[in-house]
């Protein structure tokens, strides 16, 4: 079968040519790059990527196929499109159920094989994340679209409450309940909590846990999620209430930005974001530096009153987490739940749960 040509076109006219694979239909979105070398099934199903065309700096993809659904991080692929240098159509892994190409086709996600993804990365690094579109030969043209103008959180957040309980063997004597505001959480967040023996209630982004007939819980987690934090106003209001009630609260990624906004701090958009599995973060006031998974385009600029910096990026000194000086409010900009990426900061869940 002859491959169709496909193009990645940017708003400034910059165009990259390659071959189409995956779903054969064009799409527009924000083009970002990620430097992770492993874990594409996990990354692609990370809701934080909603609306984004992802460029993989690692040149090979598809090597171990796609595992069954329960191993995904959500129930569908969230990237809008994929750009990679070399697609491997001969996967080899005992967990593989289909090729990556077949999966993307099924999930209606277009992909392009563009050889010089390094130049593409340099372009995005120098010009910042850009709006772009995948155009497939013979397909009709489409308009550029900025996903950040949509409420992406609302799009990926669950519509109703869901309760999951830990396995009997991990049950602690006193069962704690954590309410997780799911702005686009990866499943591993829940797995990390359950294996620590707590009950997890997953709630929509705009659920108000402090309403009168609300379900009782001991601690609050604000998950990761896509887009501009300032769009998630309902969640910000919830966090404000949590802070007022002194409810122990942990924010992750978007949750970090939302907590900053709720407490009176501010956020801004990074030039090209942090996406990868090798970001070093220093735990402030210690000698420790952790390698973390990251996937964010926005960051906390102004630390809110009463909080201090919890983590800082060792490469570019951007904020990587905030913690309250007095109360159990804390948030990490990176992903302690990993998947994909290093599991070195999973201790943050323990740290938080000790304070619930």
């Amino acid at each position: 079968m002859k491959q169709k040509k496909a193009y990645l076109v940017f708003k400034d006219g910059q165009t990259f040519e390659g071959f189409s694979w995956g779903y054969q239909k064009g799409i527009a979105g924000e083009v970002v790059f990620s430097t992770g070398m492993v874990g594409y099934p996990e990354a692609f199903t990370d809701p934080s990527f909603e609306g984004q065309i992802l460029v993989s700096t690692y040149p090979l993809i598809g090597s171990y196929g796609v595992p069954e659904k329960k191993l995904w991080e959500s129930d569908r692929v969230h990237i809008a499109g994929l750009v990679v240098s070399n697609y491997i159509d001969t996967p080899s892994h005992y967990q593989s159920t289909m090729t990556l190409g077949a999966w993307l086709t099924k999930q209606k996600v277009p992909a392009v094989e563009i050889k010089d993804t390094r130049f593409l990365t340099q372009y995005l690094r120098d010009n910042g994340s850009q709006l772009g579109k995948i155009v497939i030969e013979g397909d009709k043209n489409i308009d550029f679209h900025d996903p950040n103008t949509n409420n992406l959180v609302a799009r990926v957040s669950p519509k109703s409450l869901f309760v999951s309980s830990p396995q009997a063997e991990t049950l602690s004597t006193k069962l704690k309940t954590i309410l997780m505001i799911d702005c686009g959480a990866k499943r591993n967040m829940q797995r990390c909590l359950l294996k620590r023996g707590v009950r997890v209630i997953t709630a929509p982004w705009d659920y108000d846990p402090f309403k009168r007939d609300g379900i009782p819980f001991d601690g609050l987690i604000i998950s990761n999620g896509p887009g501009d934090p300032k769009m998630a106003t309902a969640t910000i209001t919830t966090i404000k209430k949590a802070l007022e009630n002194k409810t122990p609260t942990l924010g992750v990624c978007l949750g970090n930005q939302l907590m900053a906004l709720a407490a009176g701090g501010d956020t801004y958009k990074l030039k090209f974001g942090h996406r990868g599995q090798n970001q070093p973060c220093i735990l402030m006031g210690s000698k420790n530096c952790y390698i973390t998974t990251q996937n964010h385009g926005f960051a906390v600029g102004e630390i809110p009153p009463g909080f201090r910096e919890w983590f800082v990026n060792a490469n570019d000194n951007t904020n990587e987490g905030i913690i309250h000086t007095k109360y159990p409010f804390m948030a990490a900009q990176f992903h302690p739940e990993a998947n994909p990426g290093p599991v070195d900061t999973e201790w943050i869940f323990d740290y938080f749960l000790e304070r619930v």
Partner: protein
Amino acid sequence: MKNKKYKKILILGSGALQIGQAGEFDYSGSQAIKALKEEGIRTILVNPNIATIQTSRLLADIVYFLPVTDYFVEQIIKKEKPDGILLSFGGQTALNCGISLTKKGILEKYHVAILGTPISAIMLTEDRQAFANHLATIHIPTPLSEAATSIEKAKKIAKKLGFPVMVRSGFSLGGQGSGIAKNMEELMSIVTHAFSFVPQVLVEQYLHHYKEIEYEVVRDKDDNCITVCNMENMDPLGIHTGESVVIAPSQTLTNTEYHQLRAASIKIVRSLGIVGECNVQFALNPKGNFTLNASPLTLDYFVIEVNARLSRSSALASKATGYPLAYVAAKLALGYALPKLRNSVTKVTSACFEPSLDYIVVKLPRWDMEKFKGAELRIGSSMKSVGEAMGIGRTFGEAYQKAIRMYDLTYTGAVDDTPTFTKTELHDALKYPTSKRMWAIAAALRQGITIPTLHHLTGIDPWFLSRIKNIVKEEETLRAHPHLLTSKLRHMKELGFSDRRIGMLTNQTGIAVRNIRKELGILPSVFQIDTLAAEFPAKTNYLYMTYNGNHHDVAPTGKNGVIVLGSGPYRIGSSVEFDWTSVSTVMALKKYKKKSIVINCNPETVSTDYDISDRLYFEEMSFERITDIYEFEHPEGIILSVGGQTPNNRAQALFHFGVKLLGTSAENIDIAEDRSKFSALCDTLKILQPAWESVSSLSAAEDFAKRVGYPVLIRPSYVLSGSAMNVCGNKEDLEKFLKEATIVSRQHPVTISRFYEQAKELEFDAVAQKGDIKAYVISEHIENAGVHSGDATVVLPTQEVSKTTKEKMSRAAGKIAKALHITGPFNIQFLAKNNEVLVIEVNVRASRTFPFISKVTGVNLMDLFVQCLFEKTVQPVSANKMKSHPELVSGSQIPDPTFVAVKVPQFSFSRLKGADPTPHVEMASTGEVACFGDTVEEAYLKGYLAVGGHIPEKGVFISLSGDEKKEKFLKSVKQLAKKNLPFFATQHTYDFLSQAGISLTKVYKIYDNKTPNVLTLIQEGKVDLVINIVDRNLPKSMKDSFAIRRGAIDANVSLFTKIKNARLFIDAITKYSLTDLAIKSWEEYE
């Protein structure tokens, strides 16, 4: 921040290059020294390997060319009083020495702190049973196993575990003495061999066809821990990682597998308290066996090895990622914290991060097993390879095919028409891997063997097999439709096909394909290796080329650039000495403000370090790639005379392409390399050479031999380290060997020449400018002609060479230099007999003796070479260098040193089962050392101890063949008798020696099957020196003689087979005891 704690630090090097421990430790030691020097710390280095960069003036402050053993290191400590010692930069040799020093309480006694990883952790990782117990306490699985210190115990354990079992030996390098035993017999053989080297073995559960995965972990004193790189072995478990094709990063691991193993490696490193670098190797079940629930993930994996030091894998990881592991490890050992260190590639980001690659890397081991007569060709759990090459690309094909061509330029890529396999050969080659396995896989795929079948036979993951099949398929379609459409050609280049291979498939030359390609605008891109996949801008000079791109990361250097071609993978005959010559040339170029551009593909080298050259192309040294780089960079020219024979072989093609060669012209290189042309030149210049003829038939060879008389020497043209060279004592020999030689090289005729027995061989090394010699050194072989110059013991200054001989040599050399209008380094090998000198060979390039003579004489000949390139007229060296020798003012002879230096070869026969451990005209040594002394005996004894020899204390077995040799050696035996050691011999030697009045014990021949014989003597520890003088003229049916030599080597007992070495050794040990040997540094000798 400057270190204040330590002022003087001792660094232990790894000694001579040997199988399992090669050039990677020159890289790690050099980086460590640099890291210390930046802190203002005085560095003392113990390393007898004179060919290394680390033992150069520009690195360590004080260098001891002495054995890295506890005795010598203690003496140095006593003298130098260092306050710290680094043990993890000199491989297993340094580590073992450090353990011994600790156990003997020496470090404590002299208050020397061990920097970095605590010694207790190192000792724990080296004791396999204790380490397995330790890992159990932190819930890290190891294969079921038990340690045995006796053969009986090993048998018992094997019975319990059930066959097959894996035998591993502790405290050894490169898996020596390890193996897979399928039955009791095999177990016995492996264990017996292992116990002659190590006190303990581990008998463990064998994990058939598990994946082998490695992590390189770095930890600082504050417990910050990162994994710099993970790597996947293409070959399954059971093939040593040093023998495996290795890919970085891993290809077939999912996120869970990758990160669970990563987490396990970090957990291990933390539990050990490593400060610095550590390598962790895992076995992973490819069929999986894990569940993902709310409960913790469990992978089916085992830890199979941990190296608490810099290793071959860490050198590879460093080159694969651009992360300077050894440099960082040294800083951490000094007490720095990882987050405080900068990433020296980007300069702006932290060193506490994990590199992200936007390319893949394929490492191929380099074997040279054909060079060892009788050696078993199969590869397995102990190392046999002598070097490695690393291909970088953005598809698997690109990286893999590059690596294959880097391995050996005679191959065109993953698919090659040679070697060919019959059906049974192919099946065997797949099931029992040999050094030919890459081509066996491609051949199998071409024959239509399916991937599942191949996977079953080889244990190689279908992922890799599919990628290779992809390459095979591309070839087949081109072969079927040999039209070079733009898209097809581009695609093939993306998959790493060479122009030459594409030409072969379309019936045209590589150059023709190149021209088509350039016309179509299909050109490679120059990409940087920047450690973080372009996330931040980096100023790195570490480059590679790829067709999977369409921009360049850098701009051409232009006129100021000078390309220096490095050595390629280390192999027999081309090793670290050519890295020294390359690096020294690069350093000299700086003085002339030239921008050096190094091309090399060997991850074990210092020349491929990120901070050596202005630009480094980690690339193939093929004509195609060199010209690609040349056309991109537009440099002033190329230097190809400092990387050994590999770059020198490119001279003609590059010249005809229009490349400017700096130094001697290509025409003149050709005259030197082409035997007929060179011979004609010698005749014109009236320079003598052994009678020779070029023959292409057996009868012509026989005629020649009849005319000049036996013995004769045969060899093919363009030799590297004497491939297929042989001395033939009679007609039968000639017939037999000529067949071997013609198999090696069908298109080239064979050269046959007269062989002189008992002649002296001398080396003439020099640098000339426009035909005038500016400096030269003559050194002398201890062995008579007939031992390859790379295997010879070389002494400087000469001991037994007359003034007349030297004058004749320099006169002949002067004429040759003038005639060939040499500018640059060259080497002439002379034969001296009866006051006549004959030229054997001229190499118009730096020879392997250059670092030795440069360091001994204090005149850096590479410096002088670069001076000759860029200065109008260079004065002869003695005029400006040696003011204290007025008699030599106008001469070019470098004055003799006031001490004696001896270069001693290192052999690795113990690793090559079945190989005959005797030096001959084919080179077999893997490395060398050089030591200094007041006399040749003192220097030799130090050197002999430095290559692992011992002074005998128990007993001597003597076997002399040939009456003449017996007579000649009698004096030495009498001398040795004064040591009062018991002597043993078999019938003939016994008769001869007892008649001469020497008291000795008669023992049986091995094939008499009676005891005592030499093997039982060795086993019982009654003999620790074997002298087995072999007569070349005796028939080859000397099974017993071979068994004696092999028995000595397999039991790690000192062996001498050459009369002159044995004599020198006896002189040395009767004249000196260990404590008589002077503990003097290089500086003190000068």
